[in-house]
């Protein structure tokens, strides 16, 4: 078994204790960086590593940092620990079990961004985790590993944990910033992007927990080493969240470019009861459904390969459905989710998710006719490319791909109308 770079607690179970983390080289990367590298050098290294954002969009982290509005201060780093995509549970494990590596990553990012304040925005449900993180931050401040004048340098960093309160949309970075400012979590218009105008109108870096947890190993081992893992376009390790109909659900840290087959059968132990695999949602509810054909099972999971087969990698929350699953029911589940989570700011998402759910409800109630499936498709198409933020755009993906790739499942519900 290869060494874990992110889920390091799988190799060193008590790495969630500071002394253990320090014994294994913890905070060396931060010390060397703060005392020996300029922020610009850090950005260059991260750019060179090819590290891409693990929150879903896969945007190169170093490139994003280089967009920070020059010479505008204060700046902020905001960590996206909202982890609310159905089927995603990797950030939680990282923060619970390998917390110091994550916090060291936060500090490295803040140093690169020249920010003296970092906010970790945890979804409200991570109550216990957030309080534990606060204790760890206090501990680090006591030990001089966070706080004022790190390692005797002029650089100071305050890290604050902020709890959300139940709203998936707050994972979208601008809604998150609104929420952090004490407002409704409704997305802002972009541009301006957070790097130009973010928290409190100041230049802000928003990164995902897993993205930042990659930083200590990149800074200590170098960009070239990092690129030996994964693919050329999608370097590095990735934590894949495997859930649904598999024998061993859980997080698996594997190089980007690992195939579905390897993840599901080698690591996940295959499908319970020896049943056949039917469908895969590779990115939670927010990407098109895939038919689990051999071609798909052999597709490498990375940022380039999945769009080629009609889906997306997103946060790599791989939900498996076996042959017993009715895809019309899956569409109902995902649509119910999006209707519940639509912030209501823009018309197509607010009304469209409601309308789609309404039509799918009717389908399940046996009151739908053939034309209702077409109408469902038309409503979904009508929403496409018109929403203010990606949530609304995501919401139609399982529906449209479901109808396109699993139409018989929908047709099976047709009744005689009303």
């Amino acid at each position, binding site marked *: 078994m290869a060494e874990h770079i992110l889920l390091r607690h799988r190799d060193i179970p008590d790495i969630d204790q500071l002394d253990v983390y320090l014994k294994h080289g913890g905070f060396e990367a931060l010390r060397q960086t703060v005392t020996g590298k300029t922020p610009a050098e850090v950005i260059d290294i991260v750019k060179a590593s090819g590290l891409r954002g693990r929150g879903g969009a896969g945007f190169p982290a170093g490139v994003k940092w280089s967009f920070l509005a020059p010479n505008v201060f204060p700046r902020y780093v905001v960590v996206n620990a909202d982890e609310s995509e159905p*089927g995603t549970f990797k950030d939680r494990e990282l923060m619970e079990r390998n917390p110091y590596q994550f916090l060291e990553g936060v500090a490295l990012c803040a140093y690169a961004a020249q920010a003296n304040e970092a906010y970790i925005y945890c979804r409200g449900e991570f109550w216990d985790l957030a309080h534990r993180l606060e204790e760890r931050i206090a501990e680090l401040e006591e030990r001089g590993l966070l706080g004022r004048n790190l390692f005797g340098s002029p650089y100071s960093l305050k890290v604050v944990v902020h709890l959300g309160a139940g709203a998936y949309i707050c994972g979208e970075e601008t809604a998150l910033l609104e929420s952090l*400012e*004490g407002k409704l979590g409704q997305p802002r218009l972009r541009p301006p992007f957070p790097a130009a105008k973010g928290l409190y109108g100041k230049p802000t870096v928003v990164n995902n927990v897993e993205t930042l947890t990659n930083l200590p190993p990149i800074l200590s081992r170098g960009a070239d080493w990092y690129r030996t893992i994964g693919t050329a376009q999608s370097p590095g390790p990735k934590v894949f969240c495997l859930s649904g109909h598999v024998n061993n659900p859980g997080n698996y840290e594997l190089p980007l470019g690992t195939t579905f087959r390897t993840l599901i059968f080698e690591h996940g132990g295959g499908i319970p009861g020896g049943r056949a695999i039917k469908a895969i949602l590779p990115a939670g509810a927010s990407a098109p459904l895939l038919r689990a054909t051999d071609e798909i099972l052999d597709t490498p999971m990375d940022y380039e390969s999945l769009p080629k087969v009609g889906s997306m990698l997103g946060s790599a929350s791989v939900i498996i459905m076996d042959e017993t699953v009715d895809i019309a029911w899956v569409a109902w589940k995902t649509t119910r989710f999006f209707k*519940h989570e639509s912030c209501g700011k823009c018309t197509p998402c607010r009304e469209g998710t409601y309308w789609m759910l309404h039509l799918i409800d009717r389908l399940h109630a046996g009151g739908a006719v053939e034309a209702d499936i077409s109408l469902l498709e038309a409503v979904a198409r009508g929403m496409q490319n018109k929403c203010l933020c990606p949530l609304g755009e995501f919401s139609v993906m399982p529906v449209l791909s479901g109808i396109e790739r699993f139409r018989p499942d929908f047709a099976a519900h047709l009744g005689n109308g009303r």
Partner: protein
Amino acid sequence: MLKDTHSSEIEAILARYPADQKRSAAMPLLYLAEQAYGYLTPAALQEVASLVGASPTQVGSLVGFYTLYHDQPGGKVRMQICVDLPCALRGAETMAETVCANLGIRLGETTPDGAVTVEGVMCLAGCDKAPMFQSQDERGIHYHENQTIESAMAWIEQTRRGGSDG
């Protein structure tokens, strides 16, 4: 008044944010008020609003938007079972239905003795340990994973008896 009973917590919360951005403290203070009063009364909204220099309407809006704030009293503890897709694939709906049937209530309702409100909620990031639920009460929010109908019922019984494993 929170100002009298929780002054050090309030100060600590306000200190987390820049002095001119007190509104950021609204959400943590709402949690504080919810824990102190059980749910968010109009008076509590006024209090939080004046602490952060926002209008009561601005603070009240948050209560409507975010699902973990409640402006109506519920059971002593809220049992929030994840019934979203990944958990549903692993039996969460059956568990939620059975728990409710055992309690004689429907999802979203409170037991007649006021002990527990059972709710179905969206993904809680515990999909690999499904079925699972979280409990929300005056002590905060806690996860209960790898559940069975039996373990969930046992937890409810324990809660009813006044003890809870938190």
